[in-house]
């Protein structure tokens, strides 16, 4: 049986994630306790807000080593959502320069457009414009599915084994998978049928 751990490091709304997991019939616990991190079969790293503050909070709670251990050694599935996805990357230029958890090499930078009419943040529902066919996280998902995005910073593409691209002014990484490490820039828990489908895919054994 799956035991889902949601890492609470004080950034953003966790309720909507737990509600979505309950709807799907999953058992979950919210934790900020480093000793509990290894007890879960699946981890969700949520988050909305500042990359810098998020990393500070993870360090203050002594969670960084535990998350790395569970992800790199124990190879448990980890899903980063929104800021949580960005934290899995190598660094962000938000509020200066902050190093991330470095599960993947991708860097996080701010949207910048020459066209003045493209608004930042990228807020609202958008579709995935392309993704590689073997990407099981996107099973049964097509260009008509929509996902809720809210972000001003985005993750840049970096040879991820599985990837999904979204187009907003320019292409950026909407989702990736490197082995057991998954990230989604959007909020599946706020994306109606499309999002619940994606969460189902993450938790289904493949």
């Amino acid at each position, binding site marked *: 049986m799956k035991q889902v751990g949601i890492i609470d490091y004080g950034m953003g709304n966790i309720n909507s994630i737990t509600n979505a997991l309950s709807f799907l019939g999953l058992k979950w616990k919210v934790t900020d306790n480093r000793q509990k991190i290894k007890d879960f079969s699946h981890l969700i790293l949520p988050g909305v807000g500042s990359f810098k503050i998020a990393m500070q909070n993870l360090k203050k709670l002594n969670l960084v080593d535990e998350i790395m251990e569970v992800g790199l050694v124990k190879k448990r599935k980890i899903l980063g959502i929104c800021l949580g996805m960005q934290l899995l990357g190598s660094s962000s230029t938000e509020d200066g320069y902050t190093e991330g958890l470095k599960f993947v090499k991708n860097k996080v930078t701010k949207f910048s457009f020459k066209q003045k009419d493209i608004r930042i943040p990228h807020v*609202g529902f958008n579709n995935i414009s392309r993704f590689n066919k073997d990407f099981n996280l996107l099973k049964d998902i097509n260009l008509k599915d929509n996902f809720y995005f809210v972000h001003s910073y985005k993750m840049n593409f970096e040879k991820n084994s599985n990837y999904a691209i979204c187009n907003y002014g320019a292409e950026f990484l909407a989702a990736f998978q490197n082995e057991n490490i998954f990230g989604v820039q959007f*909020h599946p828990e706020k994306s109606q049928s499309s999002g619940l489908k994606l969460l189902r895919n993450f938790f289904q054994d493949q």
Partner: protein
Amino acid sequence: MIKKRLIFTLLYSDNFFFQSRNFNIQKVGDISWLEKNYNFKNISYYIDELIILDISRNEKNKENFIKNINKISEFCFVPITVGGGIKSLEDAKFFLKNGSDKILINSSIFENFKIINQITEIYGEQSVVLGIDLKKIDNDYFVYSNNGQKKINQNPKKIIKNLQKSNFGELLLNSINQDGTGMGIDYSILDLLPAKFNKPLILSGGTGNFKHILEGLEKKFVSAISTSNLLNFVGDGLIKTRNKLLSEKIDFPNWDIELLQNLKSIFNDQSK
């Protein structure tokens, strides 16, 4: 490309939900009424976003309010914006931690302007929606705060322009004159925006039928239309509206309601 949004706004006060007309409010029922008589669960599958505002004029009870919000968010998988009485960073933190994805700031724009940047510094600019209530008197617009009770003696164009000195995510313009009338949206409020306004814009007040929503969403600078009219869209009104909008090729998300319902308890781990 980014899709347009249909937003539903619920007005809440002391454990009950309300219908508003020109900001005069009428009690309709509590959360179980909303579910039983209005089948809100089903309606929530046909919207793209939910705004829930505490409009009580007495002292606000945040704990009760959030309990009501959480009951709704158990079955509502869209972003939820919460507003009403957010006066401090602590208030904002409380809602953003406990079930709200964004918060709406209205009266505090005039009473505690710095709160906007205090919140967005921590939670990002996408977490704050600024709400401006406008009343047309003769041919002039005036901004009102505190549930439409307090007139702000400043030029509305200037007020909106000054908002850009803060970091925020979206702007919601609401017409008090049109509110709850179902008589259509007042598009002349768009003239109050500065020329280089560059934030997602939500229009509210006056939607009574599918045509009003269609008209609004067809405007280039309008990102979303919000309706709070429980009665105009009662029964399958909102569902029909959404389907009609989709058939008019409004670039909307197309939700698969049947699939959503089939995903309920697909893992069955909770019963183990």
